[in-house]
C-alpha cells in the first residue's frame, strides 16, 4: 500500500507555492524561478479501478460544482462527457481481448493530464489566464480568461470545457488549492482502492514500476506506464495493463502532441503575420517618400473640359 497523505493540521498554513513559482504564463513572458519545486504527479492505476466514481463525487464536492442530473443512454459514463462542472470522468470500455477472448472492463479516469508542454497554455491569447507552476500543475485563472475556446483547440486530450454561464474555461486543477496546503487531490483522497495515488513524480514512477511488475507477473505482458513524451511527460500518469494500445481505453491517444496546426498558428503565423502587415505599411511610407503623390495636373482638367464640350454650363 502506498502511504496515504496524512490529514493536514487544523491550523492555517501559508501556501507552499504561488505566483513566484510560475514557469509559464499564457501570452506573457515570465522569469523562471531560480528555485524549482519538486515535480508532483497523480498516478491512476487503471487495473485497480473498480469504477465506483468516488473520485467524481469528491471532485464535485471539493470544487463545489453542480453538474446537471443526466440521463441514462445505456452506458455507465455519467455524465456522458466532461463538462464545465465535471472535471473528471470515469470512461468505461467493454473490450474483448483477442488473445484470451476474455471481456475486459476498462475503466479510465479522464481529466486534465497536466502536460509538461501544455497545448492549452500555448494556444491561450489572454495574459495569465493559464499558468504552469514549477511543480507541474497547469491551472486556469478565471478572472483572466476571456472564454475564446483556444485552449480547447490547443489541448491534445480534449479536456477544457467552456462554461455557458460565466464564459470561462474549466478543467481539473489537480486540486492546486489542496496541494498548496499539503494535501493530496480530492479524488486521490476519496479513492477506496488506491487506484489513484499522489506524490512526487519520482515517487509515482517508482510506485508505477512496482505495479507494472505485479501486473506482468499476472500475465499482462504489455503492462506499462503512460507518461507520453510527446507533451514532455504529464503530471497525471496512468498504469495501463495494455500500455501498448492506450487507444482501447476510451481513445486515450497513443502519442499525444500539440497539433502541428496549433504550433504553426501560435508560432510562425503569429510573427510572420505581424511582419507582413508591417511590411505593407512600410512599403506605403517608402513609396510615398520616394515617388511622391500622384496628382491631377492642369492639363488633365483641361482635357476633361475639352472632352465634355468645353464651356462651363
Amino acid at each position: 500500500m502506498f502511504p496515504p497523505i496524512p490529514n493536514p493540521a487544523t491550523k492555517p498554513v501559508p501556501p507552499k507555492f504561488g505566483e513566484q513559482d510560475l514557469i509559464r504564463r499564457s501570452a506573457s513572458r515570465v522569469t523562471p524561478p531560480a528555485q524549482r519545486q519538486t515535480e508532483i504527479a497523480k498516478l491512476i492505476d487503471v487495473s485497480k479501478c473498480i469504477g465506483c466514481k468516488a473520485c467524481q463525487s469528491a471532485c464535485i464536492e471539493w470544487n463545489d460544482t453542480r453538474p446537471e442530473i443526466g440521463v441514462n443512454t445505456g452506458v455507465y459514463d455519467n455524465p456522458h462527457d466532461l463538462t464545465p462542472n465535471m472535471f473528471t470522468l470515469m470512461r468505461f470500455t467493454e473490450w474483448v481481448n483477442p488473445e484470451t477472448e476474455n471481456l475486459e472492463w476498462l475503466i479510465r479516469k479522464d481529466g486534465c493530464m497536466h502536460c509538461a508542454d501544455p497545448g492549452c497554455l500555448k494556444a491561450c491569447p489572454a495574459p495569465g489566464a493559464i499558468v504552469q507552476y514549477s511543480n507541474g500543475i497547469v491551472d486556469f485563472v478565471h478572472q483572466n480568461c476571456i472564454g475564446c475556446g483556444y485552449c480547447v483547440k490547443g489541448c491534445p486530450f480534449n479536456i477544457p470545457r467552456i462554461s455557458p454561464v460565466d464564459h470561462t474555461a474549466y478543467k481539473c486543477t489537480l486540486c492546486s488549492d489542496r496541494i498548496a496546503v499539503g494535501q493530496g487531490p480530492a479524488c486521490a483522497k476519496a479513492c477506496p482502492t488506491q487506484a489513484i495515488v499522489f506524490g512526487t513524480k519520482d515517487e509515482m514512477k517508482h510506485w508505477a514500476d512496482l505495479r507494472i511488475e505485479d501486473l506482468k507477473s499476472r500475465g499482462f505482458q504489455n503492462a506499462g506506464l503512460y507518461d507520453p513524451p510527446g507533451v514532455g511527460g504529464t503530471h497525471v500518469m496512468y498504469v495501463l495493463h495494455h500500455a501498448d494500445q492506450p487507444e482501447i481505453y476510451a481513445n486515450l491517444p497513443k502519442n499525444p502532441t500539440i497539433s502541428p496546426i496549433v504550433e504553426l498558428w501560435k508560432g510562425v503565423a503569429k510573427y510572420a503575420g505581424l511582419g507582413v502587415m508591417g511590411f505593407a505599411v512600410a512599403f506605403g511610407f517608402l513609396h510615398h517618400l520616394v515617388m511622391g503623390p500622384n496628382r491631377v495636373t492642369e492639363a488633365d482638367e483641361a482635357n476633361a473640359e475639352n472632352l465634355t464640350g468645353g464651356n462651363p454650363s
Partner: protein
Amino acid sequence: MTARDIEPGDMVHKGHPVTVDRYTAGARLNHWVTAASLILLALSGLALFHPSLFFLTGLFGGGQWTRTIHPWIGVVLFFSFTGLFLRFWKANLWAREDKAWLNRIRDVLTNHEERLPEVGKYNAGQKFIFWGMSFLVIVLIVTGFAIWDQYFNNLTSIPVKRVAVLTHSIAAVAIICIWIVHVYAAIWVRGTISAMTRGRVTGGWAWRHHRKWLRELVSGKRGG
C-alpha cells in the same frame, strides 16, 4: 450600346472644373459601414492574434467583450460587404486592357500615368482589391462560424476548428494587407478620397486615371 463598368448614378457635370459623380449616397454609406466594421474587426482580431496587441481589448471593454463582439461585427461586415459586392461586381469584371495595365505595373508605381492604357471605372489593381476582399470575406465568415463556439460549438470537431482558426488568422492578415494597399492607394492618388466622401471626383482625375470610363460617360453609354 452599354458599358458594364458604368454604375447607376455615374454622371458627368460640365463646368470648371468638370465634376464626375462616382458613388451614390447609398454606395458611400454602404462603404463606410463596411470600413468601420473592418477596422473594428482588425483591432479586436489582432488583440487575440498576438499577445503584444492584447491591450487592444481595452478598446472593446476587455477580453470577454472583445471575444463576444468580434463575431457580431463580422456578421455586420458580411452583410455590408455583400451590399458592396452586388453594387460593384459588374464593373470589376476583367477587361481587355487590364492585362496591359498589369504589364506596366512599374509605370503605375513610378507615377508614369501617360504610359498606361486607358482603363474603365476600375483598374486592374482596384479589381484585385475587390476580388481579393470578396474571396477573403467568404473565407473569414466560413472559418469564423467554425470557431464561434458560443453558438456553433457543436457544428465542427476540434481538428476542423484548428484548421479554421489557422485559416481565419492567415486570411485576416491577408485582408488587412489588402486594406493597407487600398487605403494607401487612396492617399497616394490625390483626389481619390472625395469619391467616397462627397461622391464625386474632378474631370481631370477621371481623365488621368479612368479615361475609358470618362469617355463612356461623355458619349452616353449608359450602364446596363
